[in-house]
């Protein structure tokens, strides 16, 4: 990806900057200029406002990547998930701070800020959002916890796991 294109996308990559229709309150990510829900009535024209997602959401589906994309060799195997933001939109992102076995459908996550890619040792570094399990104080990762089986979230008695 060119530096210019990445740079134009920084508001959404850095800050989850989406848009919200002020007529029907639907939130969109990436941002839209017209609301598909309202377009029939052309009500939303000029009524879309910038809206920043909170970064909170839950995993709706995921796959474990064993053949990494370029630049992700150090992180294999890693989880790539579709996350439903609490505001509604679906986002795709890597889930970090977790062993892939612990990623489950229904896992509560929040957005984190991470390096996405580096253009070699001399090139620009791209940053943006990824997701991490939502840690509550007192229930966080303890040393050695990864050796134990993770509790299965109530929403996913039988997670169907795709293997890439």
């Amino acid at each position, binding site marked *: 990806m060119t530096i210019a294109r990445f740079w134009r996308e920084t508001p959404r990559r850095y800050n989850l900057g989406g848009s919200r229709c002020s007529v029907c309150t639907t939130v969109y990510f990436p941002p839209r200029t017209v609301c598909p829900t309202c377009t029939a009535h052309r009500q939303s024209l000029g009524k879309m406002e910038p809206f920043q997602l909170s970064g909170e959401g839950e995993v709706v589906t995921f796959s474990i990547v064993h053949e990494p994309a370029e630049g992700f060799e150090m*992180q294999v195997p890693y989880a790539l998930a579709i996350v439903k933001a609490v505001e509604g939109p679906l986002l795709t992102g890597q889930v970090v*701070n977790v062993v892939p076995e612990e990623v489950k459908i229904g896992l509560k996550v929040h957005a984190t*800020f991470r390096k996405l890619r580096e253009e070699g*040792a001399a090139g620009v570094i791209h*940053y943006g959002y990824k997701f991490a399990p939502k*840690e509550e*104080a*007192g229930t*966080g990762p303890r040393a050695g916890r*990864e050796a134990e089986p993770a509790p299965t979230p109530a929403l996913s008695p039988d997670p169907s796991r795709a293997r890439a």
Partner: protein
Amino acid sequence: MQNMNAGIVSYGVYVPRYRITPAEIGQVWGVDGAAMGQGLNIERKSVPAPDEDTITISTEALRVALLRAKIDPQEIGALYVGSESHPYAVKPTATIVAHAVGATPHLTAADYEFACKAGTAAIQTCLGLVRSEMIRYGVAIGTDTSQGAPGDALEYSASAGGGALVIGRENVIATVNHTVSYTTDTPDFWRREGQRYPSHGGRFTGEPAYFRHVSECAKSMFQAAGTTTKDYTHVVFHQPNGKFPRRIGTQLGFTDDQMKYGMVTPRIGNTYSAAALIGLANVLDHAKPGERILVVGYGSGAGSDAFDLTVTDALAGYNRSIGLPVQFFLDGGVELSYSVYAKFRGKIDMGEA
């Protein structure tokens, strides 16, 4: 003077999730790492994931700080990131962090470098700007992802973490009553441009460097503030290991009880520019209104910055439950083998030029 009540409005900390023990490092180099760890009073050190660096860690810490005090990022007038591990040699860390928290474009921003005390230097700059009413809020961040050369003594302690402070005049949870510094030209630790790992003066890093500067700076604070060790409920020192701060604290006359919350290095390693800030954050996690705190940072090269703070009643209305307390990072973590650590830290030759 109302503006002299400026101080800390909010704070946030982030420490990467991975840990490695001195024993695990030592077995690679044929050294009794466990004994080394005991000597340094370091049980484990934090290790950043391959996709974490000073920019991402700073951003995570600052986001928590902004949420806790519900600060509109557009009200930030200055943002400084102190580090000796800025990802770019040229291109500021501060601009990316500012953008990532939504503080751009109407602010001044810069990166600070002064070994481990770049973060405390940033606090002083922010205090000046806030007290003179040039800005409403200033952000001072200290973050590092430092590395020691493989097998070097520093490899047992150099870790990663970040602390962010928002400095302002309104809803101040800890007033900065005084700040003083002590600075000399001392070649105890350095890294030349283009060198991957730092060099240090061995035993020269102790007495003439850390101990002299921290002790002289603390003494000039006692003089400036008219205080003695007994006036402080808590004390925080820069902590390159768990041994130095305890020794200087005892020398100055502080008790273990005064030092207990400020000591974080034994559980996460030496986070360099972040060490004093994370120690302070842990104190603030436990502090009560009216308590007085002494912070003495240290940076090689060399200098110390000291802060005399008083926790205010505004702490009652401050939401410390947002984000994670420092204790979470002290307790938590996932231990790595040396081989995975070496991979994460780029110590394995991947055959690239």
